[in-house]
């Protein structure tokens, strides 16, 4: 490994200033994603800004009006185990729980997870389905962006120079919504997803009033399937409806070939997983 500089600021302002001053610098928190790229030699850092010494950025809070706010340095394990997340947004707890293994989840932060912009990840799919917003802060101010607009492509986000994700916010889902996140791996159970599907349903008896369906890990950013959402409105989730959803998802998505499956395989898999996720959501998904 080549030598690189490491800065360890103790305040958010100092970290932001360092990133602004050194355009080649990269922020690192848990390091679970970045260190793999460094060890593989694909990313050769010149300067890393370690965020771990910054205090007060890992809080998880809930407000009935504004919803959940997760500080960027909260670990995926913090989120998964948070009583607030489990009570109000169980799908997010599940999407964090299925990431890799406990050692990774203990280190990986939610800010790092979304900032890394890797399409093969579970939490972003659930967060996009939940309408999450990222707080992007510098030493002087904060702006907010929908996560769906923040993720631009592989390893590409809307972060401006000197900006860091300071928190992820999820609006309250409202009464009567059920949710489910379903991951499918093609290698080990700890692997990154070959496909991840996040779905939310508001049911009236057997009838779908509103639906949200996001397919992740097959396209460069999570894909919200709005045509499927419209199709589901007013229908019951019988075998015919589910089969049509599977067909629509397979037809409507343009998967990437990668080591977790060919594009053709993932196209079929995305449809099947969408059917399964909806079924899971309608039968098991906790109603809120």
């Amino acid at each position, binding site marked *: 490994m080549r030598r690189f500089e490491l800065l360890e600021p103790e305040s958010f302002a100092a970290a932001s200033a360092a990133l602004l001053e050194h355009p080649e610098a990269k922020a690192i928190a848990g390091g679970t994603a970045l260190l793999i790229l460094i060890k*593989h030699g694909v990313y050769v850092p010149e300067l890393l800004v370690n965020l771990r010494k910054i205090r007060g950025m890992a809080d998880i809070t809930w407000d009935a009006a504004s919803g959940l706010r997760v500080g960027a340095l909260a670990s995926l394990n913090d989120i998964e185990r948070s009583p607030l997340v489990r009570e109000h947004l169980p799908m997010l707890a599940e999407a964090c729980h299925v990431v890799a293994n406990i050692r990774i989840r203990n280190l990986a932060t939610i800010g790092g997870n979304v900032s890394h912009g890797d399409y093969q990840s579970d939490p972003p799919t659930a967060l996009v389905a939940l309408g999450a917003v990222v707080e992007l802060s510098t030493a002087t101010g904060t702006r907010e962006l929908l996560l769906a607009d923040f993720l631009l492509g592989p390893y590409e*986000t809307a972060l401006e120079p000197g900006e860091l994700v300071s928190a992820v916010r999820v609006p309250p889902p409202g009464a009567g919504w059920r949710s489910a996140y379903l991951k499918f791996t093609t290698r080990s159970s700890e692997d990154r997803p070959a496909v991840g599907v996040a779905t939310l349903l508001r049911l009236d008896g057997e009838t779908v009033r509103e639906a949200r369906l996001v397919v992740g890990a097959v396209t460069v950013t999570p894909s919200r399937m709005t045509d499927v959402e419209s199709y589901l409105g007013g229908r019951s989730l019988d075998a015919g409806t589910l089969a049509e959803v599977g067909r629509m998802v397979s037809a409507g998505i343009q998967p990437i070939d990668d080591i977790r499956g060919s594009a053709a395989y993932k196209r079929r898999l995305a449809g099947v997983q969408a059917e399964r996720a909806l079924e899971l959501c309608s039968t098991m998904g906790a109603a809120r």
Partner: protein
Amino acid sequence: MILEGQFTIPAPQDRVWSAIWDIPTLASWVPGCTSAAQVDATTYRAHLEQQVGFLKAAFDLLLTVVETQEPLLIRLHGEGEDRKIRSNIQAEITVKLEPAPDGTLLGYHIDVSVLGRLGALGFPLIQRKAKEIEAEFARRARAGLAGG
């Protein structure tokens, strides 16, 4: 990875052929190509820099002309290396020109392999980047020769 496609350039075939052999012009059509020069009658050097998010690669390429049929076809062999991230690129490139009602139809077939660390980790990203380069090359080539 095979990249192939075709697009029409609004210029006569002889003009497109000349532009392809004008190395600074050709290099200016390839996004990320920061320098290009002729080494001898059939060999060219080029430097290609590409970025996917914060991941960067910079290849020193050696391009050899394998076959020429003026003004119809060129076949090239290209290879290069990024020493920093220990990755290699190899490409077999065929470019065909034929007259079209509104100019010249440029067809290309590129069989490209990315080997080494980048190839092991980043195939989908390389594929996506290649598509972007492809689209931008076509746009620049059309713009560069428009009005001819």
